[in-house]
């Protein structure tokens, strides 16, 4: 997991991002990846395909913008972390895989999700933003999640998982 996060951090530094929301398309183009939006079967969230000289990320245009951003980040994770696989097809899941999943492909999904989380919701930025929001002592947990989700342009669910994983949820 550590490698997934450090690779995301390195990529953010390389592309000189300017804080949230992270421009995930700019990062893709920095890596010379072509992002294609297509209306796909609703079971498919996205894919990474190495087409000869070209690397293509396909995203399901039927999904929301925030979800598409996460998918692109997730596929970039596969690209950076899992070299040599010509094709990765990702499907919609009700829940993110838990850390007890054991097959190689489960592990790769967990790594790609960890990478995407760090890319779109960099640890330091999330911690800072959460602290700022919590200065308002009357703010509700739902309002914190919603506000952070908006700031980082990710789904509420993705932000909630991020806060849990960063150990910030109980403070919220």
């Amino acid at each position: 997991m550590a490698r997934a996060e450090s690779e995301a951090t390195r990529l953010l530094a390389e592309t000189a991002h300017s804080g949230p929301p992270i421009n995930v398309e700019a990062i893709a183009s920095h890596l010379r990846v072509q992002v294609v939006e297509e209306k796909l079967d609703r079971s498919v969230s996205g894919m990474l395909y190495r087409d000869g000289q070209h690397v293509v990320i396909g995203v399901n245009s039927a999904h929301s913008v925030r979800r598409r951003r996460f998918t692109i980040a997730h596929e970039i994770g596969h690209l950076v972390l899992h070299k040599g696989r010509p094709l990765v097809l990702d499907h919609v899941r009700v829940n993110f895989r838990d850390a007890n999943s054991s097959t190689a492909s489960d592990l790769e999904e967990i790594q790609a999700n960890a990478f995407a989380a760090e890319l779109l919701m960099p640890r330091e930025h999330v911690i800072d933003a959460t602290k700022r929001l919590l200065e308002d002592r009357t703010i509700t947990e739902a309002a914190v999640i919603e506000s952070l989700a908006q700031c980082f342009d990710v789904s509420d669910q993705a932000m909630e998982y991020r806060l849990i994983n960063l150990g910030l949820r109980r403070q919220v």
Partner: protein
Amino acid sequence: MTQAGLARRIGMSRGSIANIEVGRQRIPLHLLTVIARELDVEPASLLPVGDPSSADVVPADRLRRLLPEDQTALQKVVRRAREQRGVYDGEG
């Protein structure tokens, strides 16, 4: 008939004929009928087989291992990607 022979009869260079043969060079439609007449074959017999918009987008052995909806998704994405690049650089 040799490439040089055909080239001479239709007024092109041998290099052009070689390029057309392997798909490196595109030709105007009327030239297809001229070449077919010289070779005494039907123009259609000189065309690649199959629907170029769907064939060879993704290698068949790779597709076969996927679910039908995944095959469709992959073909759609690869085709759109190639359209956006403005090139058809597949094997076909």
